């Protein structure tokens, strides 16, 4: 089976006056299978957000390429949904209008837009707030709206850039469970960036650990815990063993060769 997303020797440098000033990403090779949920974790400067932005088509690599279904990524597209840490909702649109935004661009007729939007608004539990403006929502609700908006255009891939990074610990755990519940109902390939080791292990079937200076892939940790994940699992010995392994490789990576 060909991978859904494939990073082929992706390198990204930021140059000043023709000289490489900063290597954000050094030759990343990574395959993500169809329907897989992977998390990418690493210290700041490890290039995890850069890698996601390149897959999203928002940043161009200096060399190498990202293949989605074997076709190179040339720019953003609705088959790759992106969820940002800052929610990026349109504050002048209601929750429903935000979710319908992509559907409108895709030229879907009004009643179909409405039906699809309401379906995903219900899945994220915002039905009572469909006509509310984003300013009346809490951070967690905003991010749930952003998730519904990304899902509405029916992407094959969800790219999530520290989506729960700005939320308090309790809301964060609740949203992790909601996201997994949603993912089991509406299966997509997910690449989820985080700096939270617990979150990385809890969500993923594989945790990609990256290291900084230069940004590179350090290690891939397989999480052999079955889905659906539960609170008991979070407190289990296997979980803490995996978490410790990821923790050690994030904070004490071997020096770059």
């Amino acid at each position, binding site marked *: 089976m060909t991978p859904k997303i494939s990073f082929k020797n992706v390198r990204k440098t930021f140059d000043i006056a023709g000289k490489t000033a900063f290597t954000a990403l050094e030759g990343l090779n990574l395959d993500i299978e169809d329907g897989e949920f992977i998390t990418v974790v690493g210290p700041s400067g490890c290039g995890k957000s850069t890698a996601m932005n390149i897959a999203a088509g928002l940043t161009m690599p200096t060399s190498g390429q990202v293949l989605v279904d074997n076709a190179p990524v040339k720019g*953003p*597209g609705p088959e790759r949904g*992106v969820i940002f840490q800052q929610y*990026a909702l349109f504050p002048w649109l209601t929750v429903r209008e935000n979710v319908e935004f992509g559907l409108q*661009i895709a030229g879907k007729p009004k009643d179909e837009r409405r039906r699809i939007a309401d379906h995903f608004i219900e899945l994220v539990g915002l039905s009572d707030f469909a006509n509310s*403006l984003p*300013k009346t929502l*809490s951070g967690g609700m905003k991010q749930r709206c952003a998730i519904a*908006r990304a899902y509405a255009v029916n992407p094959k891939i969800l790219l999530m850039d520290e989506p729960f990074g700005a939320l308090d610990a309790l*809301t964060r755990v609740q949203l992790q469970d909601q996201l997994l519940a949603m993912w089991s109902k509406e299966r997509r390939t997910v690449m989820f960036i985080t700096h939270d080791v617990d979150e990385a292990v809890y969500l993923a079937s594989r945790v990609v650990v990256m290291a900084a200076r230069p940004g590179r892939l350090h290690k891939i940790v397989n999480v052999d815990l079955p889905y659906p994940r539960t609170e008991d699992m979070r407190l289990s010995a296997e979980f803490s063993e995996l978490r410790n392994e990821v923790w050690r490789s994030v904070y004490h990576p071997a020096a770059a060769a």
Partner: protein
Amino acid sequence: MAVMESENTPESAKGLPMLSRPFGMLAINIVAVVVGILLWGLVTSFGVVGLPTPLAVAKQAVIQAENGLLWSDALASLGRVFTGFALGILVAIPVGFLMGWYKIARAIIEPYVQFFRTIPPLAIIPLAIVTMGIDEMPKIFVIFLASFLSSVVATYQGVISVDRTMINAARVLGANDFTIFRRVIVPASLPYIMVGVRIGLGSSWSTVVAAELIAAQSGLGFRMQQAQLYYDLATIFVSLISIGILGLIMDRIVMAIDGVLTAWQEKL
């Protein structure tokens, strides 16, 4: 999920309990104005300063209102402001968008805008009178300039301040440049544009009055200029107070429109 209650505390629960109720504030406003007028009456009726009493000014206002001079002056001034202001805004918004959206346009236009911004519009009046004559044209042109310069910068600031993440969010949902402009840039820069409109209206109003002082045959500024020749202080006061009241009303109207158009904003 019950995660939002704490953020929905009503405004009235914060701040001073007495003053936060709108009626309480309004009552204090009215008392403050009444006390101010009483003080004015006190110092003028005892001849402390050589200014007309509130009563004399009110009588003069009634005379001018009855013979229609007050209305025709106010209409003349308002007509100039609205013509110049509307033209200024109409040109400023597209030019501001051009400057924000295309770097080339910014490079071409910005030096002119920044240069003319440093010249008070009133300083253009002598040139405008010489080149355009003494009828309505030079006055409207100067008001146009005043409102254009303040709105164009605000619009341009609005466009360049649009959150990149919001543009990216639209892009990954499939929006092309035109859709991003129409559905993200325009609404997102609206609060900035409204600030420009408000400042533009204020500077238009102050410019029209000053322009009428220099060269006009009608308007509130012209009336004051005439009154000055005859030492008619009451008429000067009537004009000044009319200018203030009309300016205040126009500002409140713009604020009300702004409140409706940008109700979605998260106020800090």
